[in-house]
């Protein structure tokens, strides 16, 4: 006889623990448990057992479950130990202060237990790629907190650290030219960068004071922020050192005070390139799993840049020149386009689009007018190789002023105002430059090419700004021409007009006609058809139109018949589906219908709008 099985000793009852049980086991408070869960995100999170009843020993009370193994794992967490120590510390210090034992309190305060999160980072992200893949949320958070006003809950040091991280990230993005897409949404600006073959997307709010709503628990956000700051520091360290730059980049306090923003930090290459050479292979080993051609190329590029950086400002120009040279070399062979196309290697294919897009603005020099947000456009323009200047009202550190002759584009976001008292010089300058609205910059980036400036000129109604991230498959595409846009539309319109004219006069007659036609359509045998013909004649329809209508209605009827036949067969076959299949089928159909109706409504709206426009114009 086998061993007797006791209830609750195996299976779901053992694999899951409730939150209360977990807290009891870990001997910490709920707040500490929450903090721990956040810090271990996303390693430890509630699980959904297949049967809640079985997992909770027969009770169906609403609780959250955790894996028992996860909790056992948490029990060995050094942070948990530190949290316990901190609890003891808090007791001790409050006791010392209560007793007025100041020196003891001071001693205690000096030896306060502080937890470190590096082991969690390492454990959560065993490789660098894992970390890069997961920094989206972290970036969003630091960008948000960098813009929050400091208060009792948010000390200035926190905000400062966040803005430092923000600046470091922007510097890296600009330096490595890894920005790919930008989207101006109603929530803020979405940026997408490609780092180590991973797309990183982050959202930056527009520059307004954000209010923290009362129903938001700031403690949770701060705990997340703690983790994210640590994560980003390590990630940035690695990114910077991989490019051969010094991390953290030294901050010029004077510039920072003048509001230079990103410009207050200076990128410095680590002194010895030999050191770089030794560190590079190491990183390759570390990354181990994934080394793409891009990585290698990036490394080489960084080496080259490290050398060129010493020359200072001239570096990007040189690089551009190099790139132009490369293109020039390839051009002679393009005399026969087919042959070059066949000759292109993989590397060339990889390299080509990137070099094209990342140096999109290289030939141009931009100037921001004072109403455009510098924080957005400085990063965008510079990470695509352009030069940018701004007026002193947007902060110091502009490389050139408004009168600079090299300026090709001015980004303006205000209506056209005719200025009479313009000097000749100003007018000349104005005619030399192109005045574009901010959307032009973003649309250029998303399109991957320089668009015509006319549509985006100052005071023009802008073309719609579309998401570069695309929609789900089969969704409505606003760029595509509607299927029946040209011909069918006009046809239907003509019909409508005709209908309008006729309807008034021939209402009765038409109903008669229609009934006759319907009869004809339905008529299958000759006799009834003849009868219908006669009826049509009586109604006053000439034979030609009658024939046509009959043919049409026949076709329609046939189509309907075949359609319905097929559908009916399908419907009947649905009977033979199992319940599970039936539910799945219904679900899929429901979502499909939803998508198609969404698409249809959008298309209908567009048609309506076009019609209105045509009527108006």
């Amino acid at each position: 006889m086998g061993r007797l099985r006791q209830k609750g000793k195996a299976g779901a009852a053992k694999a899951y623990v409730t939150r209360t049980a977990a807290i009891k086991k870990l001997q910490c408070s709920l707040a500490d448990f929450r903090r721990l869960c956040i810090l271990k995100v996303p390693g430890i999170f509630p699980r959904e057992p297949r049967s809640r009843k079985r997992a909770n020993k027969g009770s169906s009370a609403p609780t959250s479950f955790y894996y028992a193994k996860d909790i056992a794992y948490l029990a060995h967490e050094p942070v948990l130990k530190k949290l316990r120590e901190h609890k003891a510390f808090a007791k001790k210090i409050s006791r010392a202060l209560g007793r007025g034992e100041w020196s003891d309190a001071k001693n205690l305060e000096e030896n306060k237990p502080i937890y470190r999160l590096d082991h969690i980072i390492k454990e959560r992200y065993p490789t660098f790629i894992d970390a890069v893949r997961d920094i989206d949320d972290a970036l969003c958070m630091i960008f948000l907190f960098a813009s929050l006003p400091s208060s009792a809950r948010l000390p200035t040091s926190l905000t400062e650290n966040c803005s430092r991280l923000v600046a470091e990230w922007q510097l890296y993005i600009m330096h490595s030219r890894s920005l790919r897409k930008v989207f101006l949404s109603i929530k803020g600006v979405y940026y997408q960068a490609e780092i180590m073959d991973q797309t990183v997307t982050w959202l930056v709010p527009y520059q307004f004071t954000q209010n923290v709503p009362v129903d938001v628990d700031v403690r949770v956000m701060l705990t997340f922020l703690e983790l994210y700051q640590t994560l980003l520091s390590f990630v940035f360290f690695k990114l910077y050192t991989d490019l051969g730059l010094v991390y953290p980049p030294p901050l010029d306090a004077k510039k920072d005070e003048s509001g230079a923003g990103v410009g207050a930090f200076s990128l410095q290459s680590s002194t010895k390139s030999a050191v770089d050479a030794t560190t590079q292979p190491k990183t390759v080993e570390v990354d181990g799993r994934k080394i793409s051609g891009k990585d290698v190329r990036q490394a080489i590029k960084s080496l080259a840049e490290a050398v060129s950086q010493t020359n200072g400002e001239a570096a990007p120009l040189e690089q551009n020149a190099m790139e132009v040279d490369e293109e020039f070399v390839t051009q002679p062979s393009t005399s026969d386009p087919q042959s070059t196309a066949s000759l292109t290697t993989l590397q060339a294919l990889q390299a080509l689009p990137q070099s094209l897009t990342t140096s999109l603005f290289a030939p141009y020099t931009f100037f921001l007018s004072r109403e455009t947000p510098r924080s957005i456009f400085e990063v965008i323009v510079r990470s695509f190789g352009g030069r940018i200047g701004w007026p002193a009202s947007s902060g110091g550190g502009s490389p050139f002023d408004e009168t600079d002759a090299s300026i090709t584009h001015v980004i303006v976001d205000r209506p056209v105002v005719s200025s009479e008292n313009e000097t000749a010089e100003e007018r000349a300058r104005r005619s030399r430059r192109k005045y574009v609205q901010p959307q032009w910059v973003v649309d250029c980036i998303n399109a991957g090419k320089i668009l015509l400036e006319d549509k985006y000129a100052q005071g023009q109604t802008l073309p719609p700004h579309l998401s570069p991230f695309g929609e789900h498959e089969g969704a409505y595409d606003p760029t595509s021409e509607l299927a029946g846009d040209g011909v069918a539309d006009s046809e239907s319109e003509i019909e409508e007009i005709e209908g309008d004219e006729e309807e008034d006069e021939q209402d009765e007659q038409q109903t008669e006609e229609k009934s006759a036609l319907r009869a004809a359509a339905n008529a299958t045998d000759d006799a009834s058809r003849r009868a219908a013909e006669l009826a049509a004649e009586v109604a006053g329809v000439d034979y030609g139109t009658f024939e046509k209508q009959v043919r049409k209605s026949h076709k329609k009827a046939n189509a309907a018949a075949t359609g319905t036949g097929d559908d009916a067969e399908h419907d009947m076959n649905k009977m033979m589906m199992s319940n599970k299949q039936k539910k799945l089928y219904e679900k899929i159909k429901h979502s499909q219908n939803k998508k198609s109706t969404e698409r249809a409504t959008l298309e209908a709206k567009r048609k309506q709008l076009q019609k209105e426009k045509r009527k108006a114009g």
Partner: protein
Amino acid sequence: MDARSKQPVTVSALSKKSMGKRKQLDDAPAPALLPQETLEMLSDEEGADQAVSDDGQVDEFPQIDAESDEEDTDEDDEELFESDDGSENSFDRDIFPRPKTIISDITGQPKRVYPEIEPDYDSDSSTEDTQNRVGDVPMHWYDDLPHIGYDIDGKRVLRPARGDELDKFLETVEDPNSWTSAFDKTAQMDKPLSAQELDIIQRLYANEVPDAGYDPYEPMVEWFTGKGKEEVMPLSAAPEPKRRWVASKWEKQKVMKIVRAIRQGRIVPSKPKTSAKLEVYSIWSEPSSSHPPPLPAPKPRLPTNSESYNPPEEYLPTESEREEWEKQDPEDREREYLPKKYSSLRLVPAYDQFVKERFNRQLDLYMAPRVQRVKLNIDPSTLIPKLPSPQSLKPFPNYKSLKFDHPSRARCLSISPDGAWVVSGDESGVVSLWEVMVGREVKRWKFESKIGAVGWCPRTDVSYFVVALEETIHCIIPPHISASLFQSTKALLAPPTLPPPPETPSPVKWVSSTLTSDGPTLSVHLPPSSGLPKQIAWHRRGDYMATVSGSGLHGGVWMHQITRRHSQAPFKKIRGVVQLVLFHPSKPHFFVATQQYIRIYNLAEQKLLKTLMPGIKWISSMDVHPSGDHLIVGGYDRKLCWFDLELSAKPYKILRYHTRAIRSLAFHPTYPLFASSSDDGAIQIFHSRVYNDLMTDPLIVPLKILRGHAVKDGLGVLDVKWCPRHPWLVSAGADGAASVWCS
């Protein structure tokens, strides 16, 4: 112990008088001692501050330190001693005798001399008054006695007369001293208080020392200290102990312990402070552990066109869409924002839900249970089973060829074995015989009660049908049959010699009626109160017939044998209410459907073979495949179960396609077809191919939904039967129509 913690003791040891000053002194350095750095635990800091201020307030209250007790008591002793010495000196001048200070002859010091006490009448007032000499005993001992004690001579001291309340009041009015008098217990009367006593009371009221002669601020008399009073000789002759001049061994051990710890690095003398500042290093340069990383959290969805600050106009919501969106709960909304269009970037306002959305994302990250789901990316049409087209499975009934109308609900019908005639019964008691081909009614019988069931005898050598009425079953010979057939039928139903009656008297009576051409030939009277027989099931040979009544003895099931004119109840007792019975087409098996189960009995061996569990709440109909290996069961809960009897007691297939209760099921005797009718007014035709190969599952293909019966009072098609030789179907509906459906 460090010096600081000792400080309060030493301070308090100085003097009680400097207590207040000490507090002030102590308060001054307190803020300096408070840590300048902000503490980590904010709440603690606040609490501590509170505690400090509280502490200060509490300390202001003069309190004697426990440690300073000894010194204080010493001092008190001293003072007591001193006051003993000079108490008379400081007493009130009026009351107490004044001392004289003279120079002592012996010591040469000034000393106070009190006047001699003269032992005369006036000298000591204390002894004079106390007449009562009982001492300090509880005076209530004398409560019941006339006296209150004894005087010095042992004579009773009588209780002084005490007036009532009025006297007391008058006394207070008359006697000006009465307010300074108090009740004397030993004398049991009011006595005026002396000037001394009044003085003490006054002092107590004023919170002063009650003793008027006590001076708390007397200058200290230095007896053994001060200039010129140093003791020259030691008090003890004991030699100086060694510990005074040899270093302590134990102290040395303690110090060495610390020194060793410092040397070994266990104690760092000037340890750098723990700082919250993060030091970054190349964390990914060491090889990672072999643990697989936890699954990354799902990324939020990327923004679509509708989120743009300048979307195409068709994305903007209409007024109704906006209203609908605003009406919805924030959780139910498909999008958390309404698309908006701004003509330029500078007009875009702040997004008010930004922080909230970030927060929600974080809540999702750490609180939402995460489940990995396989995303199904399949074409839904592949889920529909591929079945042969109905076109390839012809013939099957396709359209309604004719209709025969009954005056009321057509309940039941039966088709003759040759397939030419239909007999149908309705609720008003009308039984009609009509032709399948043309629908012409040949004959009509009218009975007094409603018709429960009709059944045509399956024998071909005789021709008659059975009509089930309330508690009665009639056998009727149809008209227009050949003479020979009529003769044989008559011989069967009304034989010249009746078979011998059964040994045991049966409650069922067989009665031959008079031979009229249009009346029943033979009637079977079921036992009274057995109700309307709902079903008639014929055995394939046509000799036995089973009827099921709604109620009555033995589950209402009766088995009738025509040739022997004998009826018997096959079950003495049966569990559940019998709904239906059926004979197996080839074996001596008998199917009995109760409300939820189907039991199969072997009639020859008289035992239960198996119980089928269709999982239907209430079985309404059942039919067995002509091969006898398959059974279909329909229920009022819309389910149809196909049983493979060889396979299992659970259904092979459960179909649910009717929208209302299933009423009737029928297998075609020759064609691979079956039909089901339902209260939704539809008849569903299926192709059902059964293979001889046991491994191949039966093929069930839905062929056609026949509509045409109207639903009346919630009832649709009540009965369907197949023509035996054609793929034709005859149905009886609640709308009174009996229809023939042809291919």
